[in-house]
C-alpha cells in the first residue's frame, strides 16, 4: 500500500466519526420533526398535499446547492449549515412513509380500537403506530442512505466529513484518497441500511428479540464510529486550536498545511479546514470561525471590496490593508512573495500556429475557439473585466473541475483555459500564459489574512510573520507540481515549502 493511501487511512477514523455525527444528528432531528408532522397531517387531510409538496420540492434541490444555500441563510460555516441542509434532505421519506403507514392501517382495526373505548392518543400509540412501524422504519432506512451519501458534500461548507477525502483527492489527483472516501461512505451507508433492515423485519414479524438485536447492532456501529470523536474531545478539550482555512485547490491545501505545521512548531495547536468556497472562507474569517488563510489581493479587491479599477500593486495593497481593518477588523499580515494570478493559457502549439501571445491577439481569434474554466471563473468580476476590456467572445464556454480542465486542453476538448500562474501544470502541459497588456486584471499577490481575534494573539503573529516574502513564484510552482504531477502528498509538499523557506533558498521574483 502506498504512503499516500496509508496517510489517507490514518485520517479515516476522524472523518468517519464527524460524518457519522453529522448524519446521525440530521436524521434524528428529521425523525423528531417528521413524526409529529406526519401524525398531524394524517388527521388533517387539508395539510397533506402542502406538506408533501414542500418536502418533495426540497428533495429536488441538488444536495450541494442546498448545502451551499444554508451558508448565507445562517451566516456561518461548518456543522450547522450542513446539519440544517441534511435535516431538510432527510424529511421526505420519513414524512411520506409515516403518513402512508398510518393511513394504511385496516379501517376495521381502527373501528375496533374506537369501539372498545380507546382515546385518540391511545389509538395512535397502541394501534396505528405499532401497525405502521415496518413502513415507518423503511422510510427511515431510505432517509439514512440518502443522508449518509449527501453528507459527503458537507466538506465545501466547512464541516468535516468523509467528503474531505473525496474533495482533496480530486484536487490533488490522488485517486486513492477519492476511493477511500467513497468506499467508507458506501460501507457506512450499507451497514446502517442492513441493520435498519433487520429492525424493519423485526417490526414486521413483531419479534421483540430480533428488534433488540438490531438495535444492539446499531449501537455498536454508532459507538464504534463515534469513539474517535469522543476521545478527541477529551484529549484537547481546553485548548482551542487555531483554524487554518483553505479554498478548493492544491496550492491552498499545501499552504494551509504549511501554516498549520508552522503554528504547531511554535507550540500552538492548529488544524486545517480544507475545501471551502472562496466567499464562504472570507466570511468565516471575518466572523472568527477561521483564524487565518491565504487569499489573493486581486480576489479581495474585486470580490470583497467590489472594486473594478486597476491600481499599482503597492497602492492596492496599502488601500486593501486599511479597508479590511476598517470594515471587517481583518488583519492583512503581508504578502508571501509570490503571485497567483488568473490568466488565460493556450497550448504552445495553438500559440505558434495562430500567432497568439497576448489577450489582444486572442480577441480576434476567440469566436473560433472554445474556452474552459473552473467552477468559479465565469462568475467572477475578473472574467467580466477581461471580456469587456478585450471584447472576448468564444464559440463555446465549458466548466470543469480544476484538475480535469488541464486534461481538457491536452485532449483538445477546449482551446483556451483559465489558469493560475503558479500552477505546476503550465509547464508540464506545454501551455503559454497570455499577457494582459491593457492591465485588465488586478495583481494577485498571495496575502496572509488574520481574523480579528487571531490578530490580537502576538504568539500567533510571531509564528507566521517569518513567512512573509519567503515564498517565490518558482518555489510555489514547484510545491504545486509535487502534488499535482509527481503524486507526492500535500504534507510532503508543505514540508518542502518549510525546508525552502528555512534555508532562505527562496527568491522573490
Amino acid at each position, binding site marked *: 500500500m502506498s504512503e499516500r493511501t496509508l496517510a489517507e487511512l490514518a485520517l479515516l477514523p476522524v472523518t468517519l466519526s464527524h460524518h457519522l455525527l453529522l448524519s446521525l444528528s440530521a436524521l434524528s432531528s428529521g425523525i423528531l420533526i417528521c413524526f409529529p408532522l406526519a401524525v398531524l397531517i394524517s388527521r388533517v387531510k387539508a395539510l397533506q398535499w402542502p406538506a408533501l409538496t414542500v418536502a418533495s420540492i426540497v428533495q429536488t434541490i441538488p444536495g450541494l446547492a442546498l448545502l451551499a444555500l444554508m451558508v448565507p441563510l445562517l451566516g456561518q460555516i461548518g456543522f450547522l449549515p450542513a446539519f440544517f441542509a441534511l435535516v431538510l434532505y432527510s424529511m421526505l421519506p420519513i414524512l411520506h412513509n409515516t403518513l402512508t403507514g398510518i393511513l394504511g392501517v385496516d379501517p376495521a382495526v381502527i373501528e*375496533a*380500537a374506537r369501539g372498545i*373505548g380507546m382515546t385518540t392518543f391511545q389509538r395512535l400509540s397502541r*394501534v396505528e403506530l405499532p*401497525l405502521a412501524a415496518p413502513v415507518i422504519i423503511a422510510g427511515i432506512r431510505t432517509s439514512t442512505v440518502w443522508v449518509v451519501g449527501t453528507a459527503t458534500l458537507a466538506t465545501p461548507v466547512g464541516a468535516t466529513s468523509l467528503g474531505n477525502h473525496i474533495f482533496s483527492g480530486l484536487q490533488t489527483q490522488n485517486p486513492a484518497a477519492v476511493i477511500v472516501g467513497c468506499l467508507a461512505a458506501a460501507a457506512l451507508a450499507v451497514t446502517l441500511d442492513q441493520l435498519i433492515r433487520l429492525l424493519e423485519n423485526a417490526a414486521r414479524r413483531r419479534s421483540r428479540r430480533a428488534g433488540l438485536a438490531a438495535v444492539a447492532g446499531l449501537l455498536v456501529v454508532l459507538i464504534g464510529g463515534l469513539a474517535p470523536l469522543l476521545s478527541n474531545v477529551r484529549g484537547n478539550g481546553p485548548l482551542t486550536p487555531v483554524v487554518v482555512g483553505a479554498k478548493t485547490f492544491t496550492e491552498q491545501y499545501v499552504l494551509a498545511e504549511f501554516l498549520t505545521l508552522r503554528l504547531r512548531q511554535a507550540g500552538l495547536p492548529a488544524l486545517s479546514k480544507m475545501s471551502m468556497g472562496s466567499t464562504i472562507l472570507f466570511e468565516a474569517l471575518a466572523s472568527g470561525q477561521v483564524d487565518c488563510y491565504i487569499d489573493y489581493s486581486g480576489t479581495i479587491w474585486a470580490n470583497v471590496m467590489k472594486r473594478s479599477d486597476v491600481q499599482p500593486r503597492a497602492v492596492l495593497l496599502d488601500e486593501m490593508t486599511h479597508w479590511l481593518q476598517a470594515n471587517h477588523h481583518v488583519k492583512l499580515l503581508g504578502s508571501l512573495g509570490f503571485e497567483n494570478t488568473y490568466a488565460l493559457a493556450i497550448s504552445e502549439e495553438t500559440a505558434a500556429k495562430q500567432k497568439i501571445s497576448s489577450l489582444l491577439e486572442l480577441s480576434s481569434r476567440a469566436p473560433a475557439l472554445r474556452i474552459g474554466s473552473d467552477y468559479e471563473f465565469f462568475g467572477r468580476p475578473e472574467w467580466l473585466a477581461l471580456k469587456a476590456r478585450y471584447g472576448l467572445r468564444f464559440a463555446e464556454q465549458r466548466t470543469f473541475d480544476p484538475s480535469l480542465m488541464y486534461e481538457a486542453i491536452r485532449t483538445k476538448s477546449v482551446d483556451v483555459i483559465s489558469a493560475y500562474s503558479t500552477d505546476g501544470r503550465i509547464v508540464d502541459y506545454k501551455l503559454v500564459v497570455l499577457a494582459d497588456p491593457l492591465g485588465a486584471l488586478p495583481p494577485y499577490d498571495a496575502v496572509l489574512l488574520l481574523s480579528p481575534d487571531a490578530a490580537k494573539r502576538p504568539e500567533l503573529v510571531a509564528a507566521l510573520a517569518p513567512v512573509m516574502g519567503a515564498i517565490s513564484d518558482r518555489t510555489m510552482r514547484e510545491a504545486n507540481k509535487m502534488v499535482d504531477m509527481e503524486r507526492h502528498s500535500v504534507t510532503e509538499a508543505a514540508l518542502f515549502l518549510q525546508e525552502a523557506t528555512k534555508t532562505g533558498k527562496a527568491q522573490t521574483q
Partner: protein
Amino acid sequence: MIRLEQVSKVFVESGAPAVQSVTLEVHNGELLGLVGQSGCGKTTTLKMINRLVEPSSGRIVVDGRDIANTDAVELRRGIGYVFQGIGLFPHMTVSENVGIVPKLLQWEPSLIEKRVDELLEMMSLSPHDYRDRMPRELSGGQQQRVGVARALAGRPNIVLMDEPFGALDPVTRDALQFEFKSLQKSLRLTVVMVTHDMTEALLMADRIAVMHMGQLLQLGTPRQLLAHPDHPHVAALLETPRRHAARLEDLLRTRP
C-alpha cells in the same frame, strides 16, 4: 336497559336517512336480535348505542343516562363490542387482545392476567396453549372466541354484536351460537345482536326487531313474529327458515 326514543340518522354524504325515527327498548338480561337486509340501518342503529355513530336526532338512554351527556370513551369501555369480521388487533397476542379493556380501565396487571385466563377457559381455549399466540395463528372460530372474550373482559352488562358469527363455517357457527346463548343467560347479559340471518335470530334472540329501509317494522318474540307477521316484508324474511324447517321435518319423519 337501553332505550331508543325517536332516533334518526342522516349521513351527510348520502343525504338519505339511514335510520328513521326508531323507538325501542332492550330489557335487562335480554338478547335482542336486530334483523334486516343489508343497508336497512341495523348496524347504524347498533353503533349509535355506543356512540361510534352520533344520532342526528332523538335520544338514547343507557342504564338511565342520556348517552349524549356521557363521555364517549368511558361509555364504550363499559359496553362490550363484538365486531363484524372479528377486528382483533393483529399486533397483539391473544392475552393482550383480551386484556386490552381492563388495561384501559387501569386494572392491576395480576388481576388482568387472572381475568384473561378465566375468559379463555370460559371460551374453551386453554390459556396455556393460546395466551401467547398471535391472532393470525388461530382459525376463524378461535379468533371469534377471542373476540367474544375481549368483549366480556371488562365485566360489562351490555354487549353489542355486529354480525358476530357471519364469517364462520356452519358447524363452528352453530357451536358458538349455542355457547354464547348459554353464557348470555348465565351472566344475564343485555345483548343487541345485529344479523341478516333470520334463523340465527329466531334461535338465539328473546325478542327480534325487524328493520327495513331505516324503519322499525316489527318488534316481538320469535313466536309472535312467526304467528303474526305485521308486514309482508317480515313475512318474507320468515319464509326461508319456515321452508327449511318444514323440509327438515319432512326428511326426519319419512326416515325408513
